[in-house]
């Protein structure tokens, strides 16, 4: 095997590596943003079967369906919002802006990463979002969540390090 073939082989690995990181981080951000629009639809009642036949008592089993709607949107989940609002280092107006921006930002950055549009810039912005989330979790002492976001940051840094091998992209500048 020649040294040229070795270089090509290494490049292919890096190219696939950045592609995988882009896909993972893109899906992770995009679907997280979409889920902020999820809520419960109208519950559906079905009759409970006993011995294979509808029970005679009228017992029902309620199945809640999941629906997506603009009206369901919560950028910061309500339990976290209630905690953040009481934090002196988080002004209410800033929290409200963050609440509005977070979901769309995750969706847009997820899409740009997935499609390869300004990959390095997208990765950097995504890293800033995860850093801001880390700040909030530090205040409310959610160490497990902080560690989980730390893993995301490591993956983003790895993707930035491999950015020069980013071949399957729509817009490579930035």
């Amino acid at each position, binding site marked *: 095997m020649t040294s040229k073939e070795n270089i090509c082989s290494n490049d292919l690995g890096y190219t696939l590596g950045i592609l995988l990181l882009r896909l993972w981080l893109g899906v992770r951000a995009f679907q997280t943003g979409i889920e902020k629009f999820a809520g419960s639809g109208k519950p559906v009642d079905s009759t*409970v079967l006993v011995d294979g036949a509808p029970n005679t008592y009228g*017992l029902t089993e309620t199945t809640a369906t999941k629906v997506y709607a603009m009206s369901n949107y919560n950028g910061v989940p309500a339990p976290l919002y209630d905690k953040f609002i009481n934090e002196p280092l988080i002004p209410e107006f800033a929290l409200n802006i963050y609440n509005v921006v977070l979901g769309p930002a995750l969706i847009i950055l997820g899409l740009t990463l997935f499609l390869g549009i300004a990959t390095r810039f997208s990765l950097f912005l995504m890293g800033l979002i995860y850093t801001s989330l880390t700040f909030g979790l530090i205040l409310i002492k959610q160490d497990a969540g902080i560690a989980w976001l730390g893993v995301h940051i490591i993956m983003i840094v790895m993707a930035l390090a491999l950015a020069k091998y980013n071949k399957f992209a729509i817009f490579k500048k930035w």
Partner: protein
Amino acid sequence: MDFKLPSLSRREFLSKSTIGAGLVLGAPSILKAKASGSPGDDIRVGFIGCGKQQEVLFNAMVNIPGIRYVAACDIMKARVGRTFSAIKSRFNYNINRYLSAEEMLDKEDLDAVFVATPDFWHAPHTVMALEAGCHVYCEKMMSNTIEGARSIVAAMDRTGKLCQIGHQRRSNPRYQFVLNELIQNENVCGQIININGQWNRALSSSQDIVSKPSILPEANILREYGFNAGADHTLSLEELRHRFLNWRFYTELSGGPISDLGAHQIDIFNWFLGTQPKSVMASGGRSYFKDREHFDNVMCIFEYETALGSARAFYQVLTTTSSGGGYYETFMGTDGTIEMSEREAYTNIYKESGADSTKWDELVRRGLLKKESVGVAAGGSDAIASYESAPPDKYALPGGMSKQPHTPHVENFYGAIRGDTKLTCDARHALESEAPIYWVNPAANSHEIINFTEEHLHA
């Protein structure tokens, strides 16, 4: 040739006809014979008492078809107005408003009446409505005295009218399923030896009710309606209004917490065991609300003799704490425990480790139970093996009820009026179940066990 028949209400017809007396007893069969589906088939309904419980009942029946709301009465004008508005906004028609039940029953042609007044008025209003030819749904307790409750049974028998008592769990499909299928048919509990029930309420839910004075009845009205009963001095307007809003605190007006809250659940003890208790011992105190006439906390033990052996039922009603998981009735047997509650969230079923697993697995397979989790020992360094029992597996009912808790009971009442079904809790059966409850406060006051005789419990 045109004929115009004279306008005559059914009540006028019954009272004026020479055969009216005979038809009164036959009235249920007349109602049963009516063709369904036509507007004339609507059950004409009136309300006596328009407070909170009437609101609960009305909300439970708003989706039941075939009802025509006709009239409502309450001595508090604002409450009647609220009922009028609720019906107007929901159904877009007007009802007639009264301040007197007698006047309403005299003037209106009603098929059914809902009595949701203070406990000490249940019996007079129910008897009055039954004798006016109406079927009656009366809130529990039937009365603040056992004599009052007996007068309802007598009036029901005398008039031949239906009288449903508001022990709504009796019509709840979850309760019916547990009793008929799990306890009676499948005997999942084995021998039920102990029962434990409670209704614990936080202090915040046990405070005095207050209202804007300008909408409350005047002193002469409150005296006329007996809100001064048992007072040892002439009550001021403020005192009378406190009694009007907080009648549950006064011994002459209600049975207190054991009656308000305990009656629902002690009824389940008797219903599920299929028998009345043999005795009661009780303890109670005005431990926090020292100025209230009734006990704020009561604990009692009923002893039963069932076909399988003796059993004991402990019940507590506490108005100073919400601890202990709200309200439930737990039936503890040798094979399993069923923790029932009107709230699905408080309902759990447990299999003893020694019970036949094959049988329980089969119940799951057939759809009678759902398995939730396998019992896991708590463990820890403080556990001493010889003290511990193997943890029970946890199960759940296969389904729930997709209606408000009172709706099936009201549906049963209307169904019985139409002749489609039998009442699940008529006054006679209700009194058989309620009778022991009337003796809890006397037992707590005397600190003596009351061994029940026919005299204590008969209907």
